[in-house]
């Protein structure tokens, strides 16, 4: 099937909002190359459970495509047109299984040495429509706070080395009341700016109770039953003797929140997000540090929040991968030092992911060795590449960021 053959009836099985969106844009979809359309439909088909920021981006993207003349679109997408897509892929049911098509296309691009050309086409296209439809500035400057080192008395290496060039490193932080101050900060921001999914708290262990309901909370401990259910599904494939990577990917891609015990009645969007963390993230099911880092990345990328609190907790020690996947080691020892190193890198990645969003020049960032004396602050009002021996409290640091 080619995109030119699409009709409104092609989307009958889509969820309501996705169907309406696709039908409204079917004329544009018909004119786009096959190497691109299923990738767009991969986003469209999930429209009903996407975050508002994602829905806006999809709206913007199609508004941009509609606003271009046929010639302009053809010029813009010539890179995609030049990608050869074999008949076998065209024959897939890419309208209803765009994710499977995407995986097959990826394998084909690698095997036929077209990956670089595809990347170039995608970069050119993304740059064009993002320039025409830039993301709006956030309601308030973004703030991310990352707590690392729980359970670790000291660090074997200097902390925040990758972040130091961008902010001020403080070596004499008074840890007293630090957590309470951070919770208050997040709560106040969530109370003042009540847009949904704009404030997040991600915990690599057990989530603390926050006084505000306006904060989206995701925790490694809270998802223990879902993680266990995912691992059970993975073991089913492994033990069947018939499963390879493709079988497992397909199984994971077809996993719905209900399949792993997540409740979609109150917040289907968040339930689907949690499912994606466990089905699309590598290592999120078994290592809490990976879970916290990847969840923060995905929340920043997809929901574009203004407040992000990430609290890393010690992960389990490394075991043979098959044993970790077996889920039999519920009381495995933790590795606090290794977790601190993971989290230090995780803090750096969280900052990078925040800086990819609009308003980056005004965004603020704080990373703290929880309960200890080391922290780094990054923001427009904070000098870069400076080591400060000043006595500081977490309250002062947050006030300094503004």
């Amino acid at each position, binding site marked *: 099937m080619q995109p030119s053959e699409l009709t409104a009836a092609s989307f009958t099985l889509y969820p309501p909002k996705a169907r309406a969106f696709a039908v409204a844009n079917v004329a544009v979809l018909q004119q786009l190359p096959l190497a691109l359309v299923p990738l767009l439909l991969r986003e469209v088909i999930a429209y009903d459970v996407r975050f508002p920021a994602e829905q806006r981006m999809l709206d913007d993207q199609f508004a941009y495509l509609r606003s271009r003349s046929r010639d302009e679109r053809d010029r813009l997408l010539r890179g995609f047109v030049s990608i050869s897509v074999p008949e076998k892929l065209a024959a897939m049911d890419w309208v209803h299984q765009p994710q499977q098509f995407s995986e097959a296309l990826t394998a084909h691009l*690698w*095997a*036929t*040495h077209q*990956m670089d050309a595809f*990347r170039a086409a995608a*970069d050119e296209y993304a740059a064009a429509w993002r320039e025409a439809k830039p993301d709006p500035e956030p309601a308030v400057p973004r703030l991310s706070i990352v707590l690392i080192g729980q359970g670790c008395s000291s660090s074997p290496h200097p902390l925040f*080395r990758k972040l130091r060039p961008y902010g001020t490193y403080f070596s004499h932080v008074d840890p007293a009341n630090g957590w309470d101050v951070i919770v208050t900060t997040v709560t106040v921001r969530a109370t003042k700016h009540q847009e949904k999914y704009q404030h997040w708290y991600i915990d690599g262990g057990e989530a603390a109770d926050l006084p505000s309901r306006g904060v989206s909370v995701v925790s490694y401990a809270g998802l223990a039953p879902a993680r266990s259910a995912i691992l059970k599904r*993975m073991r089913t*494939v*492994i033990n069947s003797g018939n*499963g*390879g*990577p*493709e079988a*497992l990917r397909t199984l994971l891609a077809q996993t719905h929140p209900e399949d792993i015990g997540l409740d979609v009645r109150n917040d289907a969007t968040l339930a689907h997000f949690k499912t994606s963390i466990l089905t699309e*993230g*590598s*290592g*999120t099911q*078994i*290592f809490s*540090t*990976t879970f916290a*880092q*990847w969840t923060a*990345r995905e929340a920043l*990328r997809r929901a574009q929040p203004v407040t992000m609190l990430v609290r890393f907790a010690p*992960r389990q020690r*490394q*075991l*043979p*991968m*098959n*044993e*970790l*996947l077996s889920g039999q080691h519920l009381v495995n020892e933790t*590795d606090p*030092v*290794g*977790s*601190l*190193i*993971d989290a*230090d*890198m*995780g803090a*750096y*990645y969280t900052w*990078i992911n925040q*800086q*990819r*969003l*609009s308003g*980056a*020049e*005004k*965004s603020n960032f704080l990373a703290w060795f929880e309960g200890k004396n080391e922290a780094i602050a990054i923001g*427009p009002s904070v000098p*870069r590449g400076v080591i400060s021996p000043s006595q500081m409290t977490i309250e002062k640091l947050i006030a300094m960021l503004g």
Partner: protein
Amino acid sequence: MYDKLNLLDPREASRRIAWSRRDFLRSAAGVAGAASLFSFAPARALVQLKNQKVVVVTFGGGARDEETFAPEGQENVPNLVKTLFPQSTFYAQVVNRGILGHYVATASLATGVYETFNNFATVPPENPTVFEYFRKDLKRPLHDAWVVAPSNGFNRIGESDNRAYGSGLGAGVILPKHLLQAALPAHGTIDYAHLLRDNYETPFYTPELAGSEVEMQQLEDILKLSVNDFVHHAMSLASPDELSVYIAKQLMRQMAPSLLWITLHDIDIAHSGTYSLYIDGIQRSDRLCLEIWNAIESNPEYKGRTTMFILPDFGRDSDIDAGGNGFQHHRTGDTLSRTTWMMVLGPGVRQGIVIDRPVQSIDLVPTIGARLGFSARFSKGVPLTEIA
């Protein structure tokens, strides 16, 4: 000041990072004498030596510059930087234009052609391997070429299905983990579980091989190890790569193969997203490379006539590329994930030389061919004139 990162062209950013190798090279080359930097002229290309041996060590789990040879990464590879680099010719930009999956990339290294098969399929390479060229052209016996490979997925790497070569002309392949598993039933697995870690990219994928008879035969006839000795020694080791190097050294002692290929794999734990374990893997690989070189230098069969090639099969994604998640994977195909390095040591190899021009990973096989005297006629690479 606070640039929005996605406004940077990711490719340009990666290119900048790749070029920062020069910074490392300048600092590290200080050990060997900066005068030799970038000044190589291929006037003294090695005359083919007699009775040469080659040991190839690949990292089947890419490692990035910033965790290895960039200034901030050198603390992770002290043996490569301080001990081996001064004795080596160092290729600073080895580009892999093929599929960035470890089995298919290692197969591409071994054939000198970018193989295109499914990375997770248990299939042989389509093109003749270096082992087949070596054995057929030089009429070498079976036990003169060996592969020590990390996981079951690599069990077909020793021999292609090319009709002109193929069956019976490849290398012997030892999968140390499979060997250990075969030896374990009488001894239990609890104390050895750390040595049986699996494919990190798809940890569930461990295709079963034939029964354990082959392994037991390898253990006793080839490695001259009793099951008890092998299992007992394995208990003292910390990781699958240590087990691989232990087996490789035993092979060198017992069989002294002229062509030995060792693929390390611990680094690939990075796919689990744990930075500390990724760094542990790099540090272990660094130590094991020195251990292998010391084994070469202390073995009369190898000393003074062995060329060792050390190279990762490719890199990993850059922190900057929004399509990836930094060190965790190698999925973006960005410049950093495609670019790595190669270190060459041995007789006639100029020491402390840095080659800054880009070369390709598929140049390895024709280069080995030029040194050992066979023709890698199906390879798409070219011999590296500086050492061939």
